[in-house]
């Protein structure tokens, strides 16, 4: 195989000191054909081969490390701006956060009583499952340069307990799932990627559907809903738990638009993700969900 990567002059064909006027075209074509076949076979036959995925996983940490170095000056600049914010602006923010904290604490009080109530019911039903999911806090460190995809890099990996297939939560709801894990970093696919779809449920009516990514960062699409279905703008979509990948009950998106063309059997429903996917860097990875304990991994 070494002839593929060796230089033409090493073949002895143009071993002279004078630069060749014409290249050895047969050799070039042969290389092209062999390497193209190699690419095509990796793409179409060996895409899921353990060695191929091992190379992809192994590259995640290297890419994350390099991109952190490239991004470092930008981060330093941001931090400099941050440190120069005025005292007043900081005071306002502290006040706002305190206010928000008070509201959240109030809500958490209710949640605590509900949780204990729920635990009592579960005990009554002889079900020994935990109520709370185990979460890992992570940060989005970079976004894939491929404009067709919504793939992000997270700064937590297998060493922190992240595994492929785990759901990723934003501030206000589900934002994606882990697709590739290395030791210290991982890649997550966002729900708006046009290769992504997830089972959801309308919170108001319990209606089940599949929310597909549209390729736009602020839009999900639901197709194949009968035009007479009870769904309207403003409805909250939550994960339905079907399919066994996303635990039941996380907010996903809010319906923005229901389009029913006259004479069409199906409605086209658009929804905006509950959590702004292009804003904020802090996310949570659901490491272990109480709902799926004992169930086989999807």
């Amino acid at each position, binding site marked *: 195989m070494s002839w*593929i*990567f060796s*230089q*033409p*002059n090493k073949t002895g064909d*143009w*071993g*002279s*000191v004078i*630069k*060749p006027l014409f*290249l050895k*075209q047969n050799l*070039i*074509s042969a*290389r*092209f054909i062999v*390497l*193209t076949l*190699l*690419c*095509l076979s*990796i*793409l*179409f036959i060996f*895409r899921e081969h353990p060695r*191929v995925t091992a*190379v*992809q996983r192994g*590259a*995640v940490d*290297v*890419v994350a490390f*390099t*991109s952190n170095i*490239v*991004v470092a000056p*930008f981060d330093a600049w941001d931090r400099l701006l941050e440190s120069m914010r005025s005292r007043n602006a900081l005071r306002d923010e502290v006040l706002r956060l305190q206010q928000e904290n008070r509201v959240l604490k109030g809500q958490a009080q209710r949640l605590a009583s509900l949780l204990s109530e729920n635990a009592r019911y579960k005990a009554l039903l002889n079900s020994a499952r935990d109520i709370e999911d185990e979460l890992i806090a992570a940060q989005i460190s*970079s*976004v*894939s*340069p*491929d*404009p*067709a*995809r*919504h*793939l992000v890099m997270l700064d937590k990996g297998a060493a922190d307990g992240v595994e492929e297939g785990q759901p990723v939560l934003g501030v206000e709801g589900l934002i994606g799932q882990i*697709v*590739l894990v290395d030791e210290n970093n991982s*890649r997550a696919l966002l729900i708006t*990627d*046009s*290769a992504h779809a997830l089972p959801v449920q309308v919170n108001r009516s319990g209606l089940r559907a599949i929310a597909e990514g549209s*390729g736009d*960062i602020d839009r999900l699409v639901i197709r194949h809903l009968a035009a007479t279905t009870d769904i309207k703008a403003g409805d909250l979509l939550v994960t339905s738990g079907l399919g066994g990948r996303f635990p039941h009950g996380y907010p996903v998106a809010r319906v923005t638009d229901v389009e029913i063309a006259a004479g069409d059997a199906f409605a086209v429903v658009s929804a905006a993700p509950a959590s702004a996917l*292009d804003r904020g860097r802090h996310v949570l990875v659901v490491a272990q969900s109480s709902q799926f304990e004992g169930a086989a991994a999807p």
Partner: protein
Amino acid sequence: MRAHAVWVIYASILAALLFTLLPLPLDWRGFRPDVAALALFYWVLALPHRVGVATAFTVGVTQDLIEGAPLGLSSPGLMLATLLLLYNYQRIRQFDLLQQSLAILVLMLLSAGIEQWLRNGIDVPSAPWAAVAGMICSMLFWVPTRTVLRHFRRYYEVY
């Protein structure tokens, strides 16, 4: 024919690949010029006996790893563009800068077209039409890239 300062070639292509990692807002990613491909094309034109299909293959695989795309997605297009350059480098060297830029645009469209075709074949989302704007950006970057790399090639006497 002994090689001299070949590291400049690989260092410049590596630097161009790092350019891909610069953060851009989500919707602006399509406009990023593909500097790595431009650097590759420059070196193929300048030193066709050093840089060829195998280098194109390596650049493509590295791009796939950076993007998190399935392995082998970018390479075939780049390799075909490189092959065409290898067969026509003497002609393209004689072009003026506008003609060269247009030739580069055609090569970019060809290699992107092949990538789209492969993406459809394996059900990976294909690039939005805005990506054509990125190729036009790449075309506009050809003259600066070529000028800078030619300076390096002469300064370090790469051959």
